[in-house]
């Protein structure tokens, strides 16, 4: 069970104009701007739920995922994931969760993928039997058998993403945070990933929080969506609540953003 209550997070960014003169001036006097990434965000997610977390660029989606993973510390508010505070008990917390950051890489670049998997097996202290079972299941479902012996740098983006998703699930986490997992993937890979996540939720009752700009992902996977804009939760409902007539889902969401002025 995930609970966020009145969470706030802001970033201080130094801004200046272009040019050498401005750079020299900035050496002595710097102008800061505070970005309020999260402004009183509260929600609750029950075990086994699949939630889509949507919003325009810069709304605070990735900040929320990072706070829930324990990477960032919120400025104020309480965060509880299965009774633990993520940023306080980082090591105990991350043992139980799986995270996929779509724009980052967790596999070691130069070594075969299976070597990275073996390292994760040791880091998470997975027993040999569990590891073999997980590996077989993931290899079959994500079609990884030909990819495991290649170094990560020689895989295409779609192949690498499939391996990364497998790497995040080797230790069978109960909660899965997906931050844009299908970014840059072709249609076949996207369908494979979607199908896989759905299966994980159905068989292992994994709680999934999915952040994405691809509305087809939301349509096929999630029943509940949380809309965040300018650091605030603006809507907590289902896709049917926002669907109007026969418009495409992207047009519907764009209209939604316009309505809320975000």
């Amino acid at each position: 069970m995930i609970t966020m209550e009145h969470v706030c997070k802001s970033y201080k960014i130094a801004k200046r104009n272009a040019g050498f003169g401005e750079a020299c001036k900035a050496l002595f006097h710097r102008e800061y701007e505070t970005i309020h990434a999260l402004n009183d965000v509260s929600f609750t997610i029950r075990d086994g739920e699949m939630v889509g977390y949507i919003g325009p660029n810069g709304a605070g989606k990735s900040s929320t995922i990072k706070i829930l993973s324990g990477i960032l510390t919120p400025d104020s508010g309480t965060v509880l994931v299965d009774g633990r505070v993520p940023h306080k008990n980082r090591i105990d917390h991350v043992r139980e969760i799986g995270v996929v950051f779509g724009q980052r890489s967790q596999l070691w670049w130069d070594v075969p993928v299976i070597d990275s998997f073996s390292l994760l097996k040791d880091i998470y202290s997975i027993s040999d039997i569990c590891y073999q079972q997980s590996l077989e299941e993931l290899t079959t479902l994500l079609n990884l058998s030909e990819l495991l012996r290649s170094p990560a740098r020689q895989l295409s983006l779609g192949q690498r993403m499939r391996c990364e998703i497998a790497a995040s699930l080797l230790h069978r986490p109960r909660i899965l945070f997906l931050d844009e997992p299908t970014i840059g993937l072709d249609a076949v890979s996207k369908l494979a990933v979607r199908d896989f996540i759905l299966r994980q939720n159905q068989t292992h009752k994994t709680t999934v929080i999915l952040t994405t700009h691809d509305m087809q992902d939301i349509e096929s996977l999630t029943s509940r969506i949380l809309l965040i804009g300018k650091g605030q939760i603006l809507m907590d409902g289902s896709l049917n609540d926002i669907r109007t007539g026969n418009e495409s889902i992207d047009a519907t969401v764009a209209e939604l953003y316009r309505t809320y002025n975000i």
Partner: protein
Amino acid sequence: MKKYLSFFQLRFTMGLQYRTAALAGIITQFAWGGMQIMMYRAFYRTDAAAFPMSLSATSSYVWLQQAFLAFFAVWMMENDIFDSIVNGNISYELCRPISIYNMWFARSMATRLARAVLRCLECPQNMYAFVYAGWRHSGLYSAVFYLCGAVLFYTRRA
């Protein structure tokens, strides 16, 4: 503890993976060591009594220094770690149930050991050639024997 050993093993494997880079590094070190010995030889010819040890001992020291360069090259830091901070991959490292400091320490140590092992595997073979030649001739000749012996040894192994 096992986690850190795994990191160590992985980094070690990576260090041995690129053979051309290893060969290039070895050749560079031979060139550098050879240059230093030639310099010392010039000084020794001028006034051998000014030095606390003989030329052959100095040559041994230079070659040992080259073989174990990875250990005391303080400037050689794990660029992987800096890159991961800059491009954000560190988010994944923070999602591992493991102490960050200990993990980075194990990685850095493994990289240095892998490099050092590659270089100094040639040492026992060449100490023989070196001692034999170094006794009979000046440091420069023994360096040439060392060079030939090590190159032959490496190409045979590859």
